[in-house]
Structure formats: C-alpha cells, structure tokens
C-alpha cells in the first residue's frame, strides 16, 4: 500500500530536491570531491605544477608519523583550541545574557562586539602584531610604565601561543555572542516570571533556566567553534615565520600543511597532514554528538 506514491507526493519530492540542489551541488563540488582528491593525493609524491605525480603508497603517512613537527602541530592545534573555545564561550554567554536584559543602547553594543568578526583576519593580525611588537608595541609600553618588564609576545616560544589565542578569542567572541543571543530570545519569559515568584536569585535563574534552555545553541556554537579553532591558520601565518624561534611551539596543522604544500612544494605530504587533521576533527565531533545527550535539552 505504501509503495504507491501519489503524483502529488512525487511532485513534492522533485521540488524538494530542486530546492536543495544548489547547496548540494555546491557542497559536492567544493567540499566532498576535494576531500577525496586530497585523500588520493596523499598517496602520491607530487610532481612539479601538478604533473608527474608518483604513487608512493603509505610513504607520506610513514614520514608523517616520524616527523616530530607534525606532533608539535597536533599539540599546538589542540592547545590553541583548548585556550580559545572555553574562554570564548564563557565570555560570549555572559555577554549575551547581559545584552539580552534591559540595557540602554544594547543595539550599539551588539554591533561593536560583532565588528571583529567582520574585519579581515589578516588586517586584524597586522594591528595586533604592532600592539605586540617587543620594542615599540603599545602593550609593552604600558607594561613598562607599570614597572613590569617587557615581554617578547611574538618570538618567545612560551608566550606566542597565548598571544595568538588572545587574538583568536578577541575575534570570535562577537560571533558566538550573536548566536547565543538568538538562542536566549527563544526562551519564553514565563519561566523567569514563574521563578521570580518562587523567589529564585539571578544566579539560580542563570544556571537552572538559561543554561539548560540555551544548550542546543550552546552545543552548536561549541561544535562549530572547535572546528574553526582546529583549522586556525591566518593569524599564525601572519604572525610567525618559519624563522621565528616560536615556530615549533605555534605551528598549527593547517599552517604546517600550507608550508609543506606550497613553500616546500610537497603537496602529497601536505595532503597527508590535512587527512590527519580531518581525522582528529571527526573523532572530536563524533564524541561531542555522543555526549550531547547528556547535557543538551531540546525543549
């Protein structure tokens, strides 16, 4: 009985496919096909100008496992993510709650906080690089006048990743905040009114009403922030050159991929590094989707 599909339903299906076609075609052409091409390329030693690739099997992966720089990059990428994501989300959530309340000129604040997201990362980094400049930078100037010794924010291997994370946090807070703000506005006022009558404090309201009810948005923000953070490239590329002593303690997987593929013209090896990144991101995302049942509330 169910096998028979009415003409109307079939028509609806056709329209459905037609409507999503642009996105699907875009995804396939721009994302899915390149993923498989990269996987394919990672088994080759690439020749000059995309010609004369030689099949080497798992050679690139073998080199990768022995390459300590790759493991530095894994460590740095995870380190950067752990520094940026929690701080961003906590600050963004607090700001979203503040801007969701009755505040004069909150439209202006929302715009201001969102601006870093609109600015080009390269330009943002250039400005920060000047602030961080060890000789003439504003930050060191202020520290100096406070009697604190100057820091080498960019070239000191122990500090550089933190400096980079600060830029990362600064530029992503606004975006996460806007998403969370949208989530907050979905929460019905009634809950707060009811809890007011019950005499709940603001803090109690935040943890018992706001956080659970905004958790679907929070989950989305968490997943996308982690993925974006794992793919960090432009800030590090603009700030740290291969000659910098902080290179090994800041190089991210994408930056390492870029250097190997384009600086050292070894696209096969670069592809292998990207496959490793893909694998790591996939594992993290799978774990997150499994864990979401524990803490995400869908109303």
């Amino acid at each position, binding site marked *: 009985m169910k096998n028979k599909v009415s003409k109307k339903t079939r028509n609806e299906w056709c329209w459905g496919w037609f409507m999503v076609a642009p996105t699907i075609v875009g995804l396939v052409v721009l994302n899915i096909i390149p993923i498989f091409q990269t996987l394919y390329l990672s088994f080759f030693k690439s020749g*000059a100008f995309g010609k004369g690739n030689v099949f080497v099997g798992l050679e690139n992966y073998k080199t990768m496992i022995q390459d300590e720089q790759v493991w530095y990059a894994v460590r740095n990428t995870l380190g950067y993510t752990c520094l940026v994501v929690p701080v961003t989300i906590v600050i963004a959530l607090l700001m979203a709650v503040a801007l969701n309340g009755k505040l004069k000129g909150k439209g202006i604040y929302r715009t201001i906080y969102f601006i870093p997201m609109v600015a080009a990362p390269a330009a943002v980094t250039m400005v920060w690089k000047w602030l961080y400049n060890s*000789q003439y930078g504003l930050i060191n100037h202020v520290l100096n006048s406070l009697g604190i010794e100057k820091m080498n924010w960019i070239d000191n291997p122990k500090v550089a990743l933190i400096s980079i994370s600060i830029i990362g946090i600064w530029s992503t807070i606004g975006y996460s905040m806007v998403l969370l703000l949208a989530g907050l506005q979905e929460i019905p006022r009634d809950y707060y009114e009811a809890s007011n009558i019950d005499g709940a404090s603001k803090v109690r309201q935040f943890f018992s009403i706001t956080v659970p009810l905004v958790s679907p948005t929070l989950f989305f923000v968490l997943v996308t922030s982690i993925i974006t953070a794992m793919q960090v490239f432009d800030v590090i590329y603009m700030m740290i050159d291969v000659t*910098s002593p902080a290179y090994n303690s800041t190089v991210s997987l994408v930056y390492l991929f870029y250097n190997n593929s384009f*600086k*050292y013209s070894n696209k096969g090896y670069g592809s292998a590094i990207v496959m490793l990144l893909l694998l790591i991101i996939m594992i993290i995302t799978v774990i997150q989707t499994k864990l979401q049942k524990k803490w995400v509330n869908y109303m």
Partner: protein
Amino acid sequence: MKRKLVSVLLCAAMITTLVSGCGNKNISSDEGTKKAEESGGDVTISYACWDSNQAKLIQTVADEFEEENPNIKIDIQVNGWDDYWTGLEAAATGGSLPDTFWMHSNNIYYYGSNDQLLDLTNYIEKSDQVDLANYPEGLGEIYNIDGKQYAIPKDYDTIALWYNKTLFDEAGLAYPDDTWTWDTLKDAAKKLTKDDKSQYGFCAGLHNQEGYYNFVYQNGGEIITEDKKSGYDNEKTVQGIEEYFSFVKDGLSPEIYDDQARAEAMQNGLCAMGLFGSWNLSGFATTDFMKENFDCAVLPSANDGTRSTIFNGLGNAISATTEHPDEAWKWVEYLSSKEGQERQAELGTAISAYEGTADKFAEAYPMFNTQCYIDMVEYAQIRPYSNQTSVWEDKAYELLKGAYAGKEDTKVACEKTAAMMNEALDAE
C-alpha cells in the same frame, strides 16, 4: 495592471541591455584579436614582480615603452616575495602565468625544466638589441638550462655594510672602509653597544643572503659544492656561521628573525651597523632619517684579508603559455636593451646588468656611497642555488635558529642542516 506592465517593460529593458552589453564585448574582443593578428593591435602584457619600490620606478619605464609602442599596454602586478612564489606556482599549475615576470636563481630550474618558460634562445639570436655577452659572466648562465636561455638578466645585487654615521660620531669611531676586517667590525660593534640594551653595535638578523652567507664565503667555506652537495658540514662554513652568530651570543646584536624587523632596527637607531642588499636602496632613499644618518661601505674582509659578498641577479622571463609572445618579447627586449637598462639605472631601480650602465645607478643615489655595491662585483660570489633551492633554504632557517639563539651548538645544527640539505638535493 499598469504597474505590472511598467515593471515588465523595465525588466525587459534591463535584460536587453545586459545581453547586448555582453554581445558588444564579445564582438569587440573578437575584433581585438583579429586586429592583433593583422597589425598587432591593442595587447596587454602583464609583468609580475615582488618589489613595490622598484615597481613604482618600472612604471615610468613602462609608460615610456607604451608611448613608443602604442599598441602594447603594460600591466605591472606586485606581490610580496613569499606570496609571489606561492601565487606564481598556483598560476603555473592552472596555466595562467603572467605574460612576463621576474625570475630568481632559486626558482629558475623548477620553472625552466618544467616547460613553464618560453625558450628565448631564438629571440635573442634574431635580436639586434640583446646580446648575452653584454652582461656580467655568470648572470646569464643562471638562467640557462641545457643551452636554452629562459630569462635575460635584469639587474644584479650585492651586499654592503650599512652604518649609522651619527652613532659612529657619538662614539668617536672612524667610519667603516675597505681596511676593515672581522676583528675591526667586532671591536667597533663592542664600542657601539650600550649596556642597557638601548643600542646595539651590529644587526645580525637570522638571514642568509644579507647575513651569514657572506661570512661563510669570506671564510672560504661554501653552502653548496660544485657537485651539488651541501657545504654546511664544511668546517670553514661552520666557522663563518659561528662568527656571524657570535654577535648575538656576545650581546652585540639583538635576536632578529623577521626580515622587515632588520631594517626597522636600523631605522629606529637600535643598531649601528647591518648588512643590506643593493635592492634596499630605493626604499632607504625615501626615508629622510636614513638619508641623513646612514651610509654604506664594502663588506669587511675575513681576518686573513679574503673578501666576498653574495651576488645575485634577477632575470626577466616570459611565460610559455602567453598568448602574445611577440609583444611580450618586445617588452622584455626593451627592458634588456642598452637603452632600457640605462633608463632603469638612471631611475635607480636596481643595478642594471648591462655592462657599463651600472655607474648610472650610483648617480641615482648620490647621498650614499652607492658605488661600493658595484665595486664589490669583482670578488662577489653567486648566491648558492640548486634545482629547488627554496626547499632547503627555508628549512635551513628552521634548523639553524636554535644555534642562532645560542640554545644549540652551531656545529651540530650545521650538521643537521647538511643532512637535510643533502636529502633535498638527492630528491631533486
């Protein structure tokens, strides 16, 4: 109803203009190519380079060239050094190289041997303006692969010692001259360094061409041997590098890793001396501070009197896939001709490669002792290169920076570099 009609009409009008607009374009470009075939009509030749200071001056040359050849337009495209090569490789892979562009000894083999460049041998033979005999020996050779000439020398560059006259006067020291040796340099650097680190005697940034390469060759060492093996494990190479790094270890130079920061350290009066290539002149001459306080001199010799400076020259190349090889050649021919080379020297673009035109370059920057760059050619050493120089050259920085910062023994770091470099050379 009426409103609907108006909007439909408007839409129709817009669509017709759009369509006819496209149509016109097609027709005109068709005509353009036809014209080009018949009489060499309007053709745009792109010219890519990586130095924005020089690009401004070349624009003048291009304007003059366009006046003489009204059917050819020159489109100069500038991209910073690193991005230039990344972009060029991507363009070559996609088959859309600029028509003409700068070539460097680091990359010539990669592009030439992979058929990305137009073989200019026949063009040169037919030309009455370009003869490779008119360029310094060795420069033309860089761009010759198996008897095929893939680029024509554009300029050459050497490295000189720059010093801050004001700081020398303050310290009561005599300015550097050709009697200076490594010892004199170090003594002067010690006297010019202040204990509170507000001023350093020397700027020994981590740099090869404008840095330790010069010391290596002055010491009789080499970066790459004649049979294309690494020279980093050569004892004399290690000594040369050690001497250069010692300025940082002895506190006579700040640790500088960034290319731009080296020039900044000079321009801010942080360092009293530093090594800079002749290509910096056009930039230095635009800063009043540099003009008033700085001058340059030949590089100090090693203590046994051996002199050396790293010498390199760029070339103008034409893409193998260009649609207008004849027009592109005309432009490159003009740039390489005596007239074009003289003009570039006069404007102060770079030290022109054409023999006898270099002196005009010295005249372009009378405020500095520019002549010293040209004098050094006598004993200059061609910048070490192999088929894929950039692969081992940047990796070498990665391996040497530990030793540079004094965290690793220089000899150990050099041995590691040699191993990496030999591996890279074998893979070529």
